């Protein structure tokens, strides 16, 4: 036995091997690495040649952007004028035309707040107050009736502001409610536990559409005469209750993933149950379930479009209303592409935000 000779100088000269491949090499490795894959690649290319240039021609070259519908009808290309000519109705619905600046300003305030909240370096108490003030101002702008603003009945609210209202409030209220339900379902107190289980299972057991119907048709029947609750509010409540049940189950998954040792450590420091949850368990559990939570929130955002069935004029309904005008009938592809784009922007921003949040909270990995 002896000490082993080590050539440290030689070891110091070793470098990781560099793999260098050009575009051709990459294509060979990834697109043409077998007969079957080569065939697939060729078929895909042919399909793209068949589809992409005609679409491009239709959407951008032959397209009409601001012409009237009669010009559109004679043209081969897309008729984007169905959107540009009707943009104010699509966005604002039946909101009084000369007052459109009010929902517009409200949306701008909302976007500004969302934009600031997107970046954690602006997270502070003042941003919280900003949200509170913003909500009040947005409410006043939409409803009016004070400060010399003309009052606008909520039945006239519609389009994008309505979609945003339903989603932003729906999601922000459903999330905490879902967390509370998840904690309740894991509670040791049987009363609370079974109440939460019943709630979650009942709500998850019915489609959102039926909840919306119930809130708009059945629920008012039980109210005493003379008492009515605003229709938007009822739809809003249905969306919140529905989404919360799904969030609850996602959060429960996160809670179950928490190791026993974290509870032990919190208990041994003398933290009470509430503190243990708030300071130790939830920050970790909620972080673990960011991706599935986002899925629930994104689908809830899109599901707000179901309010059309109780005759609320959200973004999708105002678009359909334009299409039902004989003048613009038949231009549905253009219109739905536009609406899809708006929904995509919303969903994509949410995804981006969640990914950013995940990276920021990623503290427990070795670096």
């Amino acid at each position, binding site marked *: 036995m002896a000490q082993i000779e080590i050539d440290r100088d030689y070891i110091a000269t070793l470098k990781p091997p560099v793999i260098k491949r050009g575009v051709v090499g990459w294509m060979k490795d990834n697109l043409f690495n077998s007969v079957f894959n080569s065939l697939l690649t060729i078929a895909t290319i042919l399909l793209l040649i068949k589809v992409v240039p005609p679409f491009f021609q239709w959407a951008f070259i032959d397209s009409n952007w601001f012409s009237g519908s009669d010009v559109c009808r004679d043209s081969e290309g897309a008729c984007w004028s169905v959107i540009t000519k009707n943009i104010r109705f699509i966005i604002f619905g039946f909101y009084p035309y000369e007052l459109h600046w009010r929902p517009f300003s409200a949306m701008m305030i909302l976007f500004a707040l969302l934009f600031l909240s997107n970046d954690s370096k602006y997270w502070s108490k003042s941003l919280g107050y900003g949200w509170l003030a913003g909500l009040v101002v947005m409410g006043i702008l939409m409803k009016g009736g004070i400060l010399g603003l003309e009052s606008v009945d909520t039945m006239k609210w519609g389009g994008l502001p309505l979609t945003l209202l339903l989603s932003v409030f729906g999601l922000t209220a459903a999330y905490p409610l879902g967390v509370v339900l998840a904690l309740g379902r894991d509670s040791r107190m049987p009363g609370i536990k079974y109440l939460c289980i019943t709630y979650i299972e009942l709500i998850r057991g019915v489609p959102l559409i039926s909840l919306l119907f119930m809130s708009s048709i059945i629920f008012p029947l039980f109210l005493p005469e003379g008492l009515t609750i605003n229709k938007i509010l009822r739809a809003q409540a249905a969306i919140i209750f529905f989404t919360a049940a799904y969030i609850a189950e996602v959060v429960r998954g996160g809670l179950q993933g928490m190791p026993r040792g974290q509870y032990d*450590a919190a208990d*041994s420091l003398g933290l*009470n149950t509430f503190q243990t949850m708030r300071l130790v368990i939830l920050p970790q559990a909620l972080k673990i379930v960011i991706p599935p939570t986002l899925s629930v929130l994104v689908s809830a955002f899109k599901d707000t479009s179901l309010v059309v069935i109780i005759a609320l004029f959200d973004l999708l309904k105002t678009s359909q209303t334009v299409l039902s005008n004989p003048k613009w009938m038949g231009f549905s592809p253009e219109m739905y592409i536009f609406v899809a784009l708006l929904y995509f922007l919303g969903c994509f921003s949410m995804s981006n935000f969640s990914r950013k949040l995940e990276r920021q909270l990623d503290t427990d990995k070795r670096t």
Partner: protein
Amino acid sequence: MNATKQHNDSDIQNNKAIIEISDLNKWYGDFHVLKEINLTVRQQEKIVICGPSGSGKSTLIRCINRLEEFQMGKIVVDGIELTNNLKNIEKVRTEVGMVFQHFNLFPHLSILDNLTLGPIWVRKVPKKEAEETAMFYLEKVRIAEQALKFTGQLSGGQQQRVAIARSLCMKPKVMLFDEPTSALDPEMIKEVLDVMVQLSEEGMTMIVVSHEMGFARTVAQRVMLMDEGMIIEENNPEDFFTNPQSERTKFFLDQILH
């Protein structure tokens, strides 16, 4: 055994009891995991408990700060009896620190925040004061320079020292150690044991579940062997290791000495 320790040992025997366990029984379902345990721990006393896995030694010390419930018997910690009264349980937990096999640090918090969490929320200490205390104990476990890192960036030995400091920040009267070195790489055991020896020299009351015999010899007044939920043998460390009385202890020592 050195002279000062012997001198201390006789002193400690006259100290006031801080933990009194009488006729303790615990079941997991039908499984009788702790059987008629009687144990009195005096202030500043250090007790090492060893025994095969499943013998109930972890369960026993987890009962002392009520991480485990028990069905029969009585535990009194610093004059407070452990009952179902939540206030009492929380009070006992603030007086009893605990260090776990797997450290159980909070991975979403920085080291400093791990240490100040208990003092700020339970002891209601102002943040600044809690941070000063935290830095004091981090110095003590020789890891102050890591204060702003997260737990995932530390080695096992460092994490366990942070866990000890986290308990000390609550200024506990008793420290429980549940196999504090069992999950560590061999090269890191000593740095943790050194901190524990230092702590014992400062007069902390300690109950340690461990098979580190060198440690037991240096600090313990009593070493115990648990098996099948009972305390089988109890002795001073010298006699426990060199002249065990029961066959079970002899067999156990044979096994861990290879």
